[in-house]
């Protein structure tokens, strides 16, 4: 089906829509599987974001909120560099990807009007940032390690420490929103949102690895997290020029 240029999504690799242990899926999961169609011409492209539109501190969650509000203090927590590459399924790096992240502070509290967890807000931490991948598909953020937090899911559950990520490739079909976890966290295996993913190898792909080589000495630890977006079918790639 050369009218479907992207490698089809492997729905057994992603979490299924319905996973009753994650209670919110019960009333929100569509019953039908998504209908496979050829993209329209608009859907073969996607929004384009220019690096110049971003503020120089957008990737730096340690500094961006405090700087914007004129706060002197620095955020509390374990200082981190989170970095990696964005590739497609054919192992080609994807430049010019917009990556946006959001997370709780070190105490597990989100700066959001709807979060009322008893852990305090951090006056120096906003919890969101963004960057655009370079010519080799590389990205990097500076942040602090988010804390785990409790959430109502029938009974009380705890989310493992995580960073939410939103990634744009070059076409709407490559859009992805996911979460990054941290190597060694015992809460990963207990989390009903993580456990919606059927394959342990897929879960492992969401676990950022400690990367001592990329630490900033006497400043920040580093974790590496590589991201894979959908790739074009090889046959399509060989038979047709890009966009052709």
């Amino acid at each position: 089906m050369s009218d479907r240029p992207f490698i089809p999504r492997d729905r057994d690799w992603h979490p299924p829509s319905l996973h009753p242990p994650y209670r919110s899926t019960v009333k929100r999961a569509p019953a039908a599987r998504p209908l496979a169609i050829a993209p329209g011409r608009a859907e073969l492209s996607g929004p384009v974001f220019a690096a110049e539109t971003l503020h120089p501190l957008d990737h730096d969650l340690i500094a961006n909120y405090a700087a914007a509000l004129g706060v002197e203090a620095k955020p509390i927590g374990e200082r981190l560099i989170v970095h990696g590459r964005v590739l497609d399924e054919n192992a080609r790096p994807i430049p010019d990807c917009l990556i946006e992240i959001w997370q709780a502070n070190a105490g597990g509290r989100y700066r959001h009007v709807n979060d009322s967890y008893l852990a305090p807000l951090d006056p120096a931490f906003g919890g969101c940032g963004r960057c655009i991948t370079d010519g080799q598909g590389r990205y990097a953020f500076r942040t602090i390690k988010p804390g785990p937090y409790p959430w109502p899911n029938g009974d009380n559950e705890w989310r493992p420490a995580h960073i939410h990520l939103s990634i744009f490739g070059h076409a709407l079909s490559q859009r992805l929103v996911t979460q990054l976890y941290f190597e060694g966290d015992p809460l990963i295996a207990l989390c009903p949102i993580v456990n919606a993913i059927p394959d342990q190898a897929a879960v492992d792909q969401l676990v950022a690895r400690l990367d001592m080589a990329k630490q900033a000495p006497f400043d920040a630890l580093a974790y590496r997290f590589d991201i894979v977006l959908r790739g074009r079918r090889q046959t399509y790639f060989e038979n047709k020029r890009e966009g052709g």
Partner: protein
Amino acid sequence: MIEGPSNLASTLKETPSQTAGPYVHIGLTPTVADVAMRVADALDVLNGAGERMNLEGVVYDGAGAPVTDALLEMYQLDADGAPLWGRAAADFETGLFRFQTVRPADPFVSLLIFARGVNIHLHTRAYLQTDALEADPVLSQMSEDRRSTLIAQPVDANRFRFDIHLQGPKETIFFDV
């Protein structure tokens, strides 16, 4: 191919999706979350060539309740073929989302839906009633009943209503594109 402590295996699979969760606004529409740190949500590009149009609606769950934490993205080409893209957060009380855009070059605009309890984002199309609908390669494969879930209803001249039903007899058709 990949050196160092990568989280990837040697055979590359797409990174698995996870829900955007209820606090998605912090990252994608910070002013809605009340994170006063950027002039953003300034990434939106909705000023295109063509006739102005409002597209609005509510995402409903299987119990008929509005999904008040939903975040939607809209993408289309304008009359000159230039891409238009924007985000709209559902109202925290009513669930209403609204895009102020222009009439698309195609008979439809593409919509992506993110929310708590949605493990992988949903992709649908809001078709605007035009003469082109009969010839549309996707709609023409469907029964009248099924295709009606994809057609936005005119409210007045330049205002369309497109409600999205995640479950139930009126379940919206979602696509794998």
